[in-house]
């Protein structure tokens, strides 16, 4: 199963600076296994959603072009210290993961 994400959210002035580290192999489906010579099947996060106190602030689509264990940084204006940031992703095999963090 999917490993938990690491989320760090800090206030910088009136803007929340959110950093997320997801655990995922992010296989493109174009890479060959060095031993068998077979293509490694594609396995990547396809959608990411970020919510601030339950309201969607960021939606993203990704593919195999994003590095393994994807990092994502974004900024949200109007957030407050103590607000909840919720990040969820879903991969192309239907696996899902949701984690939350408080803005400090």
């Amino acid at each position, binding site marked *: 199963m999917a490993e938990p994400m690491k989320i760090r959210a800090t206030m910088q002035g009136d803007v929340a600076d959110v950093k997320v580290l997801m655990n995922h192999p992010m296989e*493109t489906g174009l890479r060959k296994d060095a031993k068998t010579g077979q293509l490694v099947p594609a396995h990547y996060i396809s959608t990411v959603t970020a919510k601030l106190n339950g309201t969607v*602030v960021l939606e993203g*689509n990704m593919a195999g072009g994003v590095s393994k264990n994807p990092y994502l940084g974004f900024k949200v204006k109007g957030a407050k210290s103590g607000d909840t940031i919720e990040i969820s992703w879903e991969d192309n095999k239907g696996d899902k993961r949701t984690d939350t963090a408080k803005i400090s």
Partner: protein
Amino acid sequence: MNALRRNVLKGATGAGAVAVAVAAGLITPTRVLAAAPRAAFDAKGMPDTLKALGISSPADSKDITIKAPDIAENGAVVPVEITSNIPGTSGIAILAEKNAQPLVADFGFTNGAQGFISTRIKMANTSLVRAIVTAGGKTYTAAKEVKVTIGGCGG
């Protein structure tokens, strides 16, 4: 006809429908970019990708800043930071022009999220990293060259 081809075709007609819906003003471009058709991610080469995204000729803009290394030693992990100072920025798409599948990721912003995204991408070759920004229904673009010494897409 194999399954993949089928999906691609399905995706392509879907993208067409979206473009029509935008033209008719039924949905805002924010939603469209945030929900970039899956076919755009599978498209090979820049012209096909732009076509799949439904973007014809984005205007060059100096208000987009791309922060990426001049030389990336490891193409598997290239940090890229894109800031758009264009008012009303609602979406940012990241493309690595010479990747087999150039579209890397796209993001849509609402409810106070700023025109900023920071991530790490894979790059097969030395090429331009291109940002396509959607703001107020228009598209803008900027690019920065990143030299890659070891490609990061396998193969």
